[in-house]
């Protein structure tokens, strides 16, 4: 199985496509929602990732819709994409678990090392 690589946008785009096929701006909005506004995909990043993911067969074109004269192209996660994303998510979870376990020993007692390090509780 091909490794996903370490780029966060790619990971987030795949995650955004798990529940349903989305069009380009739909992906941008979903990634913004998943990350609480932390990641705002730029057009080049988005289409660079879509191009690569389509080429690798991890996502595929789902359908084209024309709304008010504008083309919306929907992309869907493929089975291969889901498998690669699952492998990557497991790897990240394992790495994070090691980091959190070691931080518990490092931090002074009484300070919380919560599972959510994104909000800066560490």
């Amino acid at each position: 199985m091909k490794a996903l690589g370490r780029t966060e946008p790619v990971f987030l785009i795949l995650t955004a496509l798990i529940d349903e096929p989305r069009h380009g701006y739909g992906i941008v909005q979903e990634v913004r929602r998943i990350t609480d506004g932390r990641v705002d995909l730029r057009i080049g990043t988005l289409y660079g990732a879509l191009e690569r993911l389509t080429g690798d067969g991890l996502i595929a074109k789902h359908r084209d819709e024309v709304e008010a004269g504008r083309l919306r192209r929907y992309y869907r996660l493929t089975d291969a994409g889901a498998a690669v994303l699952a492998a990557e998510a497991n790897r990240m979870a394992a790495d994070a678990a090691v980091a959190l376990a070691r931080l518990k020993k490092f931090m002074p007692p009484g300070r919380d090392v919560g599972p959510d390090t994104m909000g800066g509780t560490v």
Partner: protein
Amino acid sequence: MTDTLESGYRSILRMLPRGYRAEHAEEMLTVLMDGARAGQQRPKPREVLSLATFALRLRLAVDGPRESGRLAGDIARRAILAYLIADFGLLMQYDAYGARIGFWFIPGLLQLAVIIAFLRGWSWSGRALCITYAGYIIHNTTWHWFFQWRRTVPGRGTAA
């Protein structure tokens, strides 16, 4: 107002390679228009930068099997483009120190023109500009040698 913004976006989308543009420009335009703020009239600088970087990446990437002749041509073009961009960066730094005098802007302008010609798709204008730039280099080099020769030969020119 929307038309102004749309034509602005259409013009920056022209930076993309022709084949990619034919396939994706319309859907990308939708994404850009959807992401625009109310009352926005021009593409945001960060979008222009993002698109320019993406266009460059598409042009520099040698992907997929192609006929060898075309592949060699592509590699050569990309090498020239990479050289020009690196050289352009050096040139701009050089100028920032004020080390050049007179007509300093000519190589910069030419290189910028060649880079833009590359980004917008290698065309006759890109070729013409490349030839002009090559002419400029030859012209410059000759004079450079000429002045060095004058300095190093005793009893001639400025060395005295």
